[in-house]
């Protein structure tokens, strides 16, 4: 009993915090894949840009909260430009082109950031400091805020896709873009806005996680790998699947850490992914045919 309260529960809470934040990152990835058919390798760099733009805004306004609003908007603009000027010409070609393009964009963005801000590690101070007693342990307030913010955002995204007209149009575009075009919807604009939204979401995740981790040009690389695993596990293009998979990965990472060195946990996570890919290639909720 003591073991459950003192060890297991806190560890599961760590996993939940991390999983929820990972879910934010993976959601954008999976929406873009579902809609544009592009596996956006540069998604991790948009995550990283969120943190750097956040540093700039914090420098100008001294406010983390302003940064939390402005940085994702700015990164959203970057995303929109990326979609309009680089991805759009490639839609009619094989998916491989998009993969290679975004891989190149990722390298370029990382090096541009290194050029502007340098390769040194930077920190963003936690806007909410201190810790609170919780379930017999001590937990940092900021991580609880991170959890609440991530869960609220996930809920908001779910409401957006199910309850708003704009969200329903995006889902319709995922199903059949040509039909939507025939119905008089400006589909290219839907694509651009969706990509921009996904970029903004990545940026938001980057900035929310920045006080816990640290800000370096390569911070996206470490996260994007996990986000890809989440998207594959959840089922390419499936929103619910991605959220579920992110929470599963978060729990797997922190619970396995109790019994093996967290360094080796990455192997276990890959093992889960390989297993799922063999047994059920479409992932938890993936559409048939995407990877089968």
């Amino acid at each position, binding site marked *: 009993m003591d*073991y459950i309260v*003192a*060890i*297991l529960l*806190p*560890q599961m809470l*760590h996993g939940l915090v*991390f999983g929820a934040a990972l879910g934010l990152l993976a959601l954008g990835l999976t929406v873009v894949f579902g809609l544009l058919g592009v596996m956006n390798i540069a998604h991790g760099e948009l995550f990283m840009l969120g943190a750097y733009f956040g540093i700039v805004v914090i420098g100008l306004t001294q406010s983390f909260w302003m940064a939390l609003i402005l940085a994702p908007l700015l990164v959203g603009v970057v995303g929109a430009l990326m979609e309009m000027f680089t991805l759009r010409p490639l839609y009619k070609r094989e998916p491989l082109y998009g993969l290679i393009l975004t891989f190149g964009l990722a390298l370029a963005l990382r090096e541009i950031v290194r050029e502007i801000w*340098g*390769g*040194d*590690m930077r920190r963003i101070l936690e806007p909410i400091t201190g*810790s609170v007693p919780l379930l017999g*342990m*001590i*937990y*940092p307030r*900021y*991580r609880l805020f991170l959890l609440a913010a991530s869960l609220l955002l996930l809920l908001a995204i779910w409401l957006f896709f199910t309850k708003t007209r704009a969200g329903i149009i995006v889902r319709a575009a995922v199903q059949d873009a040509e039909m939507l075009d025939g119905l008089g919807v400006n589909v290219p604009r839907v694509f651009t806005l969706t990509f921009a939204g996904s970029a903004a979401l990545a940026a938001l995740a980057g900035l929310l996680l920045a006080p*816990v*981790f*640290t800000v370096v040009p390569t*911070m996206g690389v*470490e996260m994007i790998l996990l986000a890809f695993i989440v998207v594959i596990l959840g089922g390419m293009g499936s929103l619910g699947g991605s959220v579920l998979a992110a929470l599963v990965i978060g729990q797997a*990472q*922190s619970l396995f*850490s*109790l*019994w093996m*060195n*967290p*360094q080796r*946990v990455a192997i276990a996570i890959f093992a889960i992914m390989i297993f799922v890919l063999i047994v059920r290639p479409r992932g938890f909720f993936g559409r048939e045919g995407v990877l089968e």
Partner: protein
Amino acid sequence: MAVSRAVSVAVALVLALAMASPAPAQETIKIGDLGSKVGVFEGYGKYQTMGAVLAVEELNAKGGVLGKKLEVVSEDDDTKPGPAVRKAEKLILQDGVKLLIGAVSSGATMAVMDVTKKHKVIHWNSISCAEFMRTTKYHPYYFSNQPDSRMQANGLVKYVLDKMGKKVYIFYTDYAMGQSDGRQFKTALEKLGGEVVGVAGAPLDTKDFTPWFGAIKASNPEVLFLAFAGTDSLRLMTQLHSFGMTKQYKLAGIDCFLLQQDLPAIAEPMEGFVQLNHFSPYNPDKDMQAFTERFKKRWGVVPNMATGSYDGVLFWAEAVKKAGSFDADKVSKALEGMCLDNTHIGRQCIRPEDHQMVMDMHLYRIEKGKNTPIARIEGKDSIGEPMVGKDPVEGFTWELKKK
């Protein structure tokens, strides 16, 4: 394409010209300063430079060495063995350094030892602490005034067992330095009757340590022994503190855990932390105070354990004078057994057998962001027997001995 070709042709021409022109008569003798100047260990690398430059300026003010002025050439090694080797070769072959100080990371230093051995250049280590450098990797041109892991463990363990607790969890940074510190600490602790209740390594530059915390709590230690350095330590302490674990356990760590400069920023998490160190600007020792004054006057900041490079330059210069030559074999011989009075911690001597400085160390407790001395450990009690060529970790295992 045409432009880049034109540029490369131009570069090649310039290089060819530079190589073809006769070398100017060497006015100055160069000293290489190699290590982490950016990234996770940049603090150490930058203070290493300051220490070396201060010594060079003091020597130059007195006319240099054998009538030649000295000059420091600094290089960053990206905290990795590969780049460290390339930069060491650049310093030796291109700049012609007669003394190479560095590197910061133990992994890089050990890799550089192969280079200094091959090219016969005096190699001074003043920060790295893996146990292989004065044992299996030892070569006659290598010298160190940094207490290695074995020396640190010998110095720290007795205090931990007497004053802090018997049940210890060892948490280390998983590369040469941390592994070495973890091993030596475990060996020394078990020898004196302590119990290691758990061990774990975290990769260099870990961002989030919370996945490790569950296992630490589950093993229920009294003392957490931490072998981390640089920004890793900074993040680890901040996270331990925010989860209430700095209050829950007694904490002890290695000398390079955090530099004095980093302490005020995380004074609260570090309060009560016991750290072994050979130097602190807050030690009332008169030699340390005198050095601190000179250092502060030159650089505007207080020195720390990473400024031992100062002694490296002084010892080398004294040996060159004694040998009357810059020849590495002669200088190496002159350095063996040499003692100097004016180092950054007062009188020190080099042990001839393994070229290790026999350094007195202190235990410090961190109080309000300052390293305050609580006990002195004689160098002769902690240095251990010379083990040149012998495996310092023979028979070692990470397995826990259940009590």
